[in-house]
């Protein structure tokens, strides 16, 4: 299970990469592998306002539709348009090419509620027990 060190994580298996006042977000390797082959993603539009822990996107596999929640509140700066035609990027490269959106962080404090890589790793291990 790939869990990069430099990211922050949620219990719903989203990740956030912080760069200045912005955060790039996506779903973790664990999430993509439990969802299976992703066939479609419904993304927000640039300019949409997101609230932490509220639905940011919906991903569909053949037999499931799952919400993905915003790890942090803020406005959407841009979304990964490649995913529309190639949702498989999420499976192939969840932390790089499979990113979902960039958020302009509205509330720096919210970061404190996110997990570090080691905490997330420990959390995932409890799930597979």
């Amino acid at each position, binding site marked *: 299970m790939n869990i990069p060190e430099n990211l922050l994580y949620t219990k719903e298996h989203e990740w956030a990469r912080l760069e200045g006042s912005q955060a790039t977000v996506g779903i973790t390797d664990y999430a993509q592998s439990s969802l299976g082959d992703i*066939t479609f993603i419904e993304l927000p539009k640039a300019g949409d306002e997101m609230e932490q822990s509220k639905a940011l996107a919906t991903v569909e596999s*053949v037999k*499931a*539709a799952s919400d993905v929640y915003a790890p942090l509140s803020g406005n959407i700066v841009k979304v990964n348009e490649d995913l529309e035609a190639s949702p498989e990027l999420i499976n192939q490269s969840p932390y790089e090419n499979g990113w979902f959106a960039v958020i302009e962080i509205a509330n720096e404090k919210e970061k404190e509620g996110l997990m570090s890589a080691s905490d997330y790793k420990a959390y995932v291990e409890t799930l597979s027990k």
Partner: protein
Amino acid sequence: MSYIPHTKEQTQEMLKAIGASSIDELFKDIRPALRPRSFDIPEGLSEFDVIERMRALASKNATGLINFLGAGFYDHYIPAAVDAITERSEFYTAYTPYQPECSQGWLQAIYEYQTAICELTGLDAANASLYDGGTALYEAALMAIRTTGRNKIIMDSGVNLIYRTMLYTYTSNLSVEFVETPVAHGQSSREEIYKHLDDKTAAVIVQNPNFFGTIDDHSDIAEKAHLCGALVIASVYPVSLGLLKTPGEIGADIATGEGQSLGLPLSFGGPYLGFMACKKEFVRKMPGRIAGATVDKDGKRGFVLTLQAREQHIRRERATSNICSNEALCALRAIVYTTLLGKQGLKELAQLNYERSEFAKNELDKIKGVEVKRSSPTFNEFTLALPRNADKVVAEMIDKGFAAGFPLGRFYKGMDNYLLVSTTEKRTEEEIKEFAEALRVVI
């Protein structure tokens, strides 16, 4: 007799294997207090007795009336091969093709049906079918609301009143705003539609031919609606699409309709066939089952139910619809019917319907006191103005052996003297002449 194959001995063997002393022991969770207070059902009958009873009931219905009654539901001839194929029990007694590898026959047939619906409507994608034309129109309205995020629907009153009433019923607990616009000279009133069209409008619903049988070209309405970001839903009569401009050609986003005319018997109102097609950008908002082509492990073409993540069994309360059925057997009738008719046949069928109706118009116009309304062209149904109450005329025509049409006063205020008359390819020159003669005598 209940089609149960167990012998007494087998029942005992099975109980023994289970470890129960009697069948009743298996029902022990249903305590005596929960048992039926009554179960007063008649004793069973033999197959012969039931058929005789059915024969007696069937004979209480009128047979042999010559049919000029349509109003959205038409008396077309059904080729024998349609029955022969749909009666094959490999189709009849299968269920929804959840397991594609043992349901390829059904899935391919549905894919072929979807193709035919796309060809008829001129749109990109169709679903595997819905219950009927009315529920299909309701689903289309909800689809437009979901797609646009708006909740106002403009509906032309040329849309079948039964369907309009159904839409009101279904949306009575939802926040949907309906505006009904009048018919002007038999066609959709542009003036009224444009007056209400705005950036809150989710969809404009039109019907072609409309309930009065008149033909319209709604291209201009589609253009204006799209400028406001609204969708256009066209409710259409599939046989007419052999001749008339398609929903795709007018620019409609969603087409729905009643598929009964494609090889389904009238059968006192059901089962019928709701069809739906749309532009490709709206496919994921479409309700119902959808078959798609793919390949198997060896790369061989095969078919599956696809886009299932829209549906109730996966998305539950957030599904695009609660529908679980597709009227597959009815859709099969439709694809076999359109296959038999074929490209040329469907066109000729539509022309025959048009021609018979034009002939009937001329014959009926000769009757003194009767006027054919001719403000707009019609397909296979038209309005007659009678010198007296159409309800009464129709009752008298029944005695002459005709189901003379639909008295419009039933649905429209102030139209008590108007009669809606339909002629399909089944109505011969002689029958139309006899009909005109009978009407002349009655009036």
